């Protein structure tokens, strides 16, 4: 096994990897994930997430966006890597930090901006803001800020898939803090006992809000969380899009074949504060040292390095395309209408079922 300086073997405060998934210099395999096209496409998804969130951060700082925004910057490889293994009809379930999940699954960029701006043209009609994103047409049936709140819902989507005899997989994205919630463990057991096509993706960014994992747990062993429930777990370098994709792909294809659920612990780090545009707003000086180390593990730079090895050097033109796309979408979102005061009782009740 290769040992890269960017690999999970050197995670600050972490423990050694337990399996072969994830070192940065993953050896070449004939699965397409090392091809320039695949890498460029994933790099594009990650860059879109980053630039979109930087635009949101700027609007937060300007006071234009007022809803609480939990930025995903630094964790882009998890969403981009997992989404590469998904089909359009697979479902994705998220939490408060889900801009990345939404964009990686194909949610509309303009509707995301419109949503955080509180416009009626937002993906949730301007009702939800950053923490409540829905886009059923791409398999997103709601991201919510109740920690682990959507995990049982993901299990339900998988249950529905199995009942219909379909192949759709449900992916539950959650943070390390979510494994402290009882219903996550209930969900692991339900998924196991009914052999449901679910992938549980724990994005372990080491902090739950302001609290480091070591202040919340004795052992650094979240990859083992499913074991008691017979859900196999894998720890993977969450800043390595290729490693995330390979681990997710293996688990998802197994789930499609009826082999049941799996858990993926993706080790990563958020660059910004728990909430808002700032870098270290809620955890103070101690985190700054850690952040410097993690900036060196930038998931985008790592894909760019691989591309350079493969002879793809000039990404600037592609970067301009993404920047323009973001700027256009922000402009269109800003032009959207704010809700009318008379709308406040609308949609308390569904008038007809919206399900597919």
């Amino acid at each position, binding site marked *: 096994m290769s040992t890269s300086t960017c690999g999970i073997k050197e995670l600050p405060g972490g423990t050694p990897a337990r399996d072969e998934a994830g070192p940065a210099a993953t050896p070449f395999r004939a699965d397409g994930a090392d091809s320039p096209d695949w890498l460029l496409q994933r790099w594009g998804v990650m860059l879109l997430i980053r630039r979109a969130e930087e635009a949101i951060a700027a609007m937060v700082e300007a006071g234009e966006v007022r809803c609480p925004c939990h930025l995903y910057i630094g964790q882009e490889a998890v969403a981009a890597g997992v989404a590469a293994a998904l089909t359009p009809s697979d479902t994705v379930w998220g939490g408060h930090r889900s801009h990345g999940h939404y964009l990686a699954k194909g949610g509309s960029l303009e509707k995301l901006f419109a949503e955080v701006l509180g416009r009626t043209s937002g993906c949730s009609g301007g009702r939800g803001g950053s923490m409540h994103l829905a886009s*059923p047409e791409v398999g997103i049936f709601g991201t919510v800020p109740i920690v682990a709140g959507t995990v049982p*819902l993901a299990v339900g989507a998988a249950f529905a898939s199995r009942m219909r005899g379909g192949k759709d997989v449900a992916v539950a994205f959650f943070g390390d803090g979510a494994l402290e919630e009882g219903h996550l463990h209930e969900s692991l057991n339900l998924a196991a006992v009914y052999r449901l096509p679910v992938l549980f993706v724990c994005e372990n960014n080491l902090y739950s809000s302001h609290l480091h994992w070591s202040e919340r747990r004795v052992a650094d062993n979240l990859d083992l969380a499913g074991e008691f429930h017979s859900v196999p777990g894998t720890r993977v370098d969450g800043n390595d899009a290729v490693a995330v994709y390979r681990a997710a792909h293996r688990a998802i294809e197994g789930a499609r074949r009826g082999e049941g659920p799996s858990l993926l612990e993706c080790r990563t780090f958020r660059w910004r504060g728990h909430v808002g545009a700032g870098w270290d707003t809620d955890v103070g000086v101690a985190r700054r040292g850690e952040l410097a180390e993690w900036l060196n593990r930038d998931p985008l730079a790592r894909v760019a390095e691989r591309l350079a090895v493969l002879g793809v050097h000039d990404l600037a033109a592609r970067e301009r395309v993404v920047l323009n796309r973001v700027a256009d979408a922000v402009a269109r979102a800003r032009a959207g209408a704010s809700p009318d005061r008379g709308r406040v009782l*609308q949609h308390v*009740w569904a008038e007809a079922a919206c399900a597919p």
Partner: protein
Amino acid sequence: MRTLSYVQAIREAHAQLLARDARVFVIGQGLWSPWYAGASLEGLDREFGRERMVDSPVSENAVTGLAVGAALVGMRPIVFHPRMDFMLLAMDSIVNQAANCSYLFGGTISVPVVIRAVINRGGEQGAQHSQALHAMFMHVPGLKVVMPATAYDAKGLLIAALEDPNPVLYIDDRWLYAETGDVPEQVYRVPIGQAAIRRTGSDVTLIGISTMAAHNLKAAATLAREGIEAEVIDLRSLKPWDRETVFASVRKTARAVVADPGWRMAGAAAAIAAEIYEAAFASLRAPVERVTLPDAPAPSSRAEELAYYPGEHEIVEAARRAVGAGQPAKAARGAA
């Protein structure tokens, strides 16, 4: 017309819903055991298969969440909570998730799920197997709440609940399981939000919920012997509730008794009484009476249970107070 018991009517509604719609499944604790479900689900696992009649692990929140997730992607689940008390562990899935979805996501998604809760009191079961918590759920926007009191409504409301695009809490009470009534064989719906006038009268309106609706009819018979003609309304749905029917009746009788099988403080009766005051204050000739549980947990011993649960007697007393307040009813009406 055919006669069925309340519990047979619940079972028949489940069987017909399972038979006509492949999206329907039932999940919860104790589905395969009469100890939990009474006869309300008897044999349905054999008839429709255990893939669709899923007796689940003891995981109230995740099982309810599973049903919510399945409903979001197009299924029509019924979640079963054999004791309403246990359902408190599922509050997140019900209140934060299911009830909020339509509003929070701007109408882009909906949760057509039925959450069935059984009130299972009496029999010295005590405080954690006896609670009637409907008022807590009435409080929550986005959640419908129905409580059938007759066999006919038990079937018709379950079918209406399943066909509703919103999360509907369907609450049945085991004290009603043996009650019999006419139940058509075909599939029919009792519209959610529509009360039923069980008896017409001119002196006082008795508004009842679930078991108390049945007690109201007996109380009305006793009151009639005293010359008090009670109008008896079975609310059937608590959210939304039928304001039009209730207000029209109270405007006519000028007196109201709300009989609620739940607690007094911030309860269903309190909410209904407040709205009667708001809408019909000028018509009232007496304070609105409430017949409720005392603000105490359910006791276990039989002796204390008898003191704890109100019934016909308490309703009769409340109606007498209402009619006796101010001028006598007949004289007052004569003067009007």
